[in-house]
């Protein structure tokens, strides 16, 4: 352990433990705790032993062992994870009054309190001590998104490096928990490869390329093979504009590859386009003909596609085209070599008119497209190159061919390498480095140079070593209070998913980040910056499982109205809703219910809300949300007040949540119930027993899931768990797998007697009306509800469980470790101290960051 860390450890250790234990008995206490195996098991002193024997052994002894628990034989071995979890469960069950069960004789209140307090103290002090000596966060490896963000921010590279790296392990749904982030030889292989790719991409080998700006229009498309749209089914809209029709061909609407080919990089596309419809027109003579009219708004999908390769589109975005005039919009994306920009009409902007429109009748009229790129920050060489090679000159590889390629030239390689490596290492290791570390990297550089490799390649080998070394890959923290550098890294990876920026690094160097005011101000700064979008996305991916938004494709016969634009809107809705809660410090009650929503017209259509006025207003007064995290030109979501009886408001009735808690064809109250208990209410259910078969859904329309479940949970063995599991699931039963409101299930038409229903807005899309949905039910405590609105009211009678639950998730994500027993105390403190703001989301984040769990390892 180096001196800095050792000193830090000792100082923090003493200050941390001092309030808990008088110093003179510190040693004894420590030893007793570390070697506390079986101490309690053999003691069983006082009220705990008598409580267990008089209230628990009847069912939980060697003879009966109900639920697999034999308390008589359960020793106190807190260092054993399983044993500790069992005692924690005993504590929870007795504290909540779930044990002894209501039909058994109940202990006196004082007796229960004594037992609970005594057990709490043991569990608490054990974990607190482990935290003091080992820290609560296990050595944390950068996960693949953190790794990719770091290299992106450091070097300005655009290659999606996360795709090169193996999948990360999860704990409680999060992918940044140290204990679950393992490392294998496959990781190391890929780290070497990823660093190699990123370093090569950041290394410049040409003079500043002119950022090309190319404009193409209909004429080009018609006359110049190289610069036009691939447009098999184009329509000449009479006035000379190019109109693109969707035909189902992936290549349609793609710009042809450029000659010479565009280099890999980020490009900006500026498009001027308008909506057009093709309609049958009957003239005075009664002759029918096709005509082009401008009478409907359409949504166009833009993206990056390849004519040569797989035709897949990347980075899709959706823009609204107006029929009245051309509108310009801007789209930025990474374009791999051999790929190009694509635009196709996607669907109509919904309106109340129920008309029949074939998708081929929609046309995107493109006036022109302007392409600018590859984009770089303006300086040449770019900052990533300068981080690696400083101001060293670029010289031709072959002096006789000055235009063929450049390489970094050094006239004093040893001195230059030492200087550059000494600058690079503290940046990527996120702290000052020892001379020995610099020497180790220089040593590799020298070896490579001696092998005859060019200066830049030899230097890159040293950087590659740094980016594969444990100092870079692990957030190494020392037990006790974090020093300023480690705190800067934790804050930065927590809120930006990347390495500390210059300001954080400077504050760490000045040693003032540990001041609560500075830490608070920095939290504010980071939360308000565009990079905080990474926190939103990753936090929701883990907390609400939104990372699985793509996992299922809703049954295309039952849910034909579901489309990719809706899916991207659903995700954006939940993410921007969360940002709104954080931005305005709104209460956790919004998790369950809210008087506003963040929607676009596609979502309003999906939720069957008539919000046309709100959208019009928002366009005029410009009260848009998005905080700069979303390209302003893309069809935006706006904050709207929900009308009474909307059946919306809060995460739990948002389509993204309802989709990830269903399987694409059917919903299960059990699955949704478990989702709400675990992620919203913070009381995760026990895993399903292994001897009970799953309920098999039936979409033929004969029975409902509720009828099937009735049979199942009416068995006494199933009833106790389902009393907790089913109520939230039934409350949400009015929402289908896409999050749409339903009063009846949908079924696939099978017989002539089926009642056929049209999907609003389309005559072509039909399904059979199934049995009616029953959402009324009762909570485990007997309070009943008629529907989702009443369920929400019951839940909101006490918002503390919501706060407790979300604080636990924030602790997990922001620190990289799931809460320990000792952290319950912190959670309670945070819940109490944020009561005045009704547990505002921003206050909760601040409180977690100011707390012991965040500022200590």
């Amino acid at each position: 352990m180096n001196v800095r860390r050792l000193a830090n450890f000792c100082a923090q250790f003493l200050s941390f433990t001092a309030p808990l234990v008088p110093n003179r008995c510190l040693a004894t206490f420590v030893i007793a705790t570390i070697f506390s195996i079986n101490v309690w098991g053999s003691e069983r002193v006082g009220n705990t032993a008598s409580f267990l024997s008089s209230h628990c052994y009847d069912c939980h002894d060697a003879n009966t062992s109900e639920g697999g628990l034999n308390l008589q034989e359960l020793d106190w071995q807190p260092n054993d994870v399983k044993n500790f979890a069992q005692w924690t469960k005993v504590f929870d069950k007795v504290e909540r009054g779930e044990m002894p069960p209501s039909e058994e004789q109940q202990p006196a209140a004082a007796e229960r309190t004594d037992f609970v307090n005594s057990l709490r103290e043991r569990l608490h002090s054990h974990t607190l001590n482990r935290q003091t000596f080992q820290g609560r966060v296990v050595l944390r490896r950068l996960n693949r998104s953190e790794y990719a963000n770091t290299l992106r921010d450091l070097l300005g590279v655009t290659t999606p490096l996360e795709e090169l790296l193996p999948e990360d392990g999860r704990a409680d749904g999060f992918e940044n928990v140290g204990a679950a982030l393992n490392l294998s030889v496959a990781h190391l292989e890929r780290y070497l490869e990823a660093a190699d790719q990123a370093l090569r991409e950041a290394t410049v080998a040409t003079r500043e390329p002119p950022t090309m700006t190319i404009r193409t229009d209909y004429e080009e498309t018609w006359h110049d093979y190289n610069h036009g749209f691939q447009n098999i089914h184009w329509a000449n809209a009479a006035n000379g504009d190019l109109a693109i029709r969707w035909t189902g061909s992936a290549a349609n609407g793609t710009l042809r590859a450029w000659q010479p080919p565009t280099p890999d990089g980020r490009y900006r596309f500026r498009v001027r386009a308008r909506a057009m419809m093709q309609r049958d027109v009957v003239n005075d003579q009664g002759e029918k003909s096709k005509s082009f009219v401008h009478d409907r708004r359409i949504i166009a999908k833009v993206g990056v596609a390849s004519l040569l390769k797989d035709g897949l589109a990347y980075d899709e975005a959706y823009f609204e085209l107006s029929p009245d005039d051309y509108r310009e919009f801007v789209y930025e994306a990474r374009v791999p070599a051999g790929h190009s920009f694509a635009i196709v009409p996607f669907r109509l902007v919904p309106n109340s008119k129920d008309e029949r429109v074939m998708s081929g009748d929609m046309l995107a009229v493109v006036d022109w497209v302007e392409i600018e790129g590859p984009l770089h920050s303006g300086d040449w060489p770019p900052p990533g190159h300068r981080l690696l090679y400083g101001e060293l000159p670029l010289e031709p590889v072959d002096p006789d061919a000055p235009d063929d390629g450049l390489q970094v030239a050094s006239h004093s390689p040893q001195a230059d390498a030492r200087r550059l490596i000494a600058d690079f290492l503290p940046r990527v290791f996120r702290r000052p480095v020892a001379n020995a570390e610099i020497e180790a990297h220089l040593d590799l550089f020298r070896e490579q140079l001696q092998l005859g490799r060019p200066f830049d390649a030899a230097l890159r080998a040293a950087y590659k070593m740094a980016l594969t070394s444990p100092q870079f890959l692990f957030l190494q923290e020392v037990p006790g209070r974090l020093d300023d550098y480690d705190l800067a890294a934790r804050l930065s990876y927590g809120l930006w998913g990347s390495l500390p920026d210059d300001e954080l690094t400077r504050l760490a160097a000045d040693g003032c980040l540990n001041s609560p005011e500075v830490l608070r101000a920095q939290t504010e700064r980071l939360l308000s910056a565009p990079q905080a979008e990474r926190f939103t996305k990753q936090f929701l991916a883990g907390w609400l499982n939104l990372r699985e938004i793509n996992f299922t494709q809703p049954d295309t016969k039952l849910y034909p109205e579901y489309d990719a634009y809706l899916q991207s809107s659903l995700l954006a809705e939940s993410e921007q809703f969360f940002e709104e809660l954080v931005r305005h410090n709104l209460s956790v009650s919004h998790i369950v219910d809210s008087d506003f929503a963040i929607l676009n017209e596609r979502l309003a259509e999906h939720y069957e809300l008539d919000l046309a006025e709100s959208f019009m207003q928002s366009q005029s007064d410009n009260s848009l949300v998005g905080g700069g995290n979303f390209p302003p030109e893309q069809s935006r979501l706006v904050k709207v007040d929900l009308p009474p009886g909307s059946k919306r408001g809060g995460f739990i009735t948002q389509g993204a949540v309802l989709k990830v808690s269903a399987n694409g064809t059917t919903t299960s109250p059990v699955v949704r119930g478990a989702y709400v208990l675990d992620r919203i209410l913070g009381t995760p259910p026990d895993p399903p027993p292994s001897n009970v078969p799953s309920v098999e859904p039936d979409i033929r329309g004969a029975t409902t899931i509720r009828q099937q479940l009735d049979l199942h949970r009416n068995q006494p063995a199933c009833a106790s768990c389902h009393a907790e599991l089913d109520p939230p699931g039934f409350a949400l039963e009015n929402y289908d797998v896409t999050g749409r409101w339903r009063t009846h299930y949908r079924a696939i038409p099978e017989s002539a007697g089926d009642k056929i229903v049209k999907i609003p807005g389309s005559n072509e899309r039909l399904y059979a009306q199934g049995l009616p949905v029953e959402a009324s039910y009762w909570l485990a405590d007997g309070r009943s509800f008629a529907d989702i609105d009443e369920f929400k009211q019951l839940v909101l009678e006490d918002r503390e469980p919501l706060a407790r639950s979300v604080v636990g998730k924030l602790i997990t994500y922001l620190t990289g470790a799931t809460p320990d027993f000792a952290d319950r105390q912190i959670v309670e403190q945070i819940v109490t101290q944020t009561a005045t703001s009704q547990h505002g989301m921003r206050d909760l984040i601040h409180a977690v960051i100011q707390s012991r769990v965040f500022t200590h390892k």
Partner: protein
Amino acid sequence: MLPVTKRRLPRRTLLKSAGIALALPWLDSMQAACSAEASQPARFLGVLNYFSFHAPFLFPQESGYDYALSPYLELLQDHKHDFTVISGLNHPDVRDGHSSDKSFFTGAPHPGSPSFRNTVSIDQVAAEAIGHATRYPSLNFSTSASYSCSYSRGGVALPPETSPANAFAKLFINGSAAEVAEEVMRVKEGQSILDRIGSEAKRLQREVGPSDRDKLDQYFSSVRELEKRMLRAESYASRPKPDVGTQPIEDPGPGEDIVRFGLLLEVARLAMQADLTRIVTLYYVGSSKTPSQPGASFAYHDLSHHGQNSDKIDQLAILERDLLRQWGEFLKRMKETRDGGSRLLDHTFSVVGAGMGNASSHDATNLPVIVSGGKFRHGQHLAHDPKNPPPLCNLWVHALQHLGLEVDAFSSSTGTLNGLT
């Protein structure tokens, strides 16, 4: 690491007879009888189908050797004596819907729990023991980059190869002189880096507490393992690759999952034939796009949730029949491929199965399993009582023993599988 045996007798036989004096003469005679083919190495090929098979179409009504082929098994009728269909197996404490597949080759309990950490899969156990004998310790294929059925000791999902063309090129196409030189240089640079970061990890190991040390140990042992792989890569880099006498394989178009599956199977066969590896896993994950087969208008996942709708079940069967046709083609080629004096199939424990028994209800019992090769007496429906299911890991013990590992247990196994002889 597990002990490695150099003897080539089926370990099953050896273990059964271990310590029994009477067995010795019989052992001798068996060795003599098998000596010609026993010199051929044992292989393993494991295929996992994510969305499972529609069980009523797969499992035969009767059990034993005298059974009538089910609708699906009719597709394999040419090979009836070369496979065993096994029903009634599952993994104990694996009831986790789609997540159950993570445990298919590992047996780790509760794969759907929020803090699940997987354990090592059988292919990696085998690769540790016998992987040193070939250019690649094991190969891991999948039709989807984000799905792997192979897991490291630390429970890390190992990234799969999804491109038959890339796999073929890596295994069989020689690079240009410049490419070879570049590769050698890259390997040497890698070795220099590993050497130094290994020392860094060693130094850090001394600084940290026990729970952190475990993570650094993983890092350190990964460095050591990669060093070994680089040594091997270095020694192979300048050697010519084997010529398997076929045209390079090209990648299929989008949506042609089933073609991709067939091509990956073919690359696996060629790799085993050329003895570039003896262990291959292959994951078939039907994509979320509508498949290319005529008659199927839904994606595989969608169809697997048929909800008893007959039209959907019929479409589902189109996809699953195609999958089994590919498997039949693979078996045919494995029988035609000579390996020493016998068929390559005989030396290859080949299995296709799924982590769910009923994907429509996400049920993970009564898993579909079809085994070929591995020197078993095939041709039967080995039916186990689903009410008293033996762990699937009992079958994996057979697989490891076939590969020459002296083991009698793997993960949740309780022994070997009754009836598999």
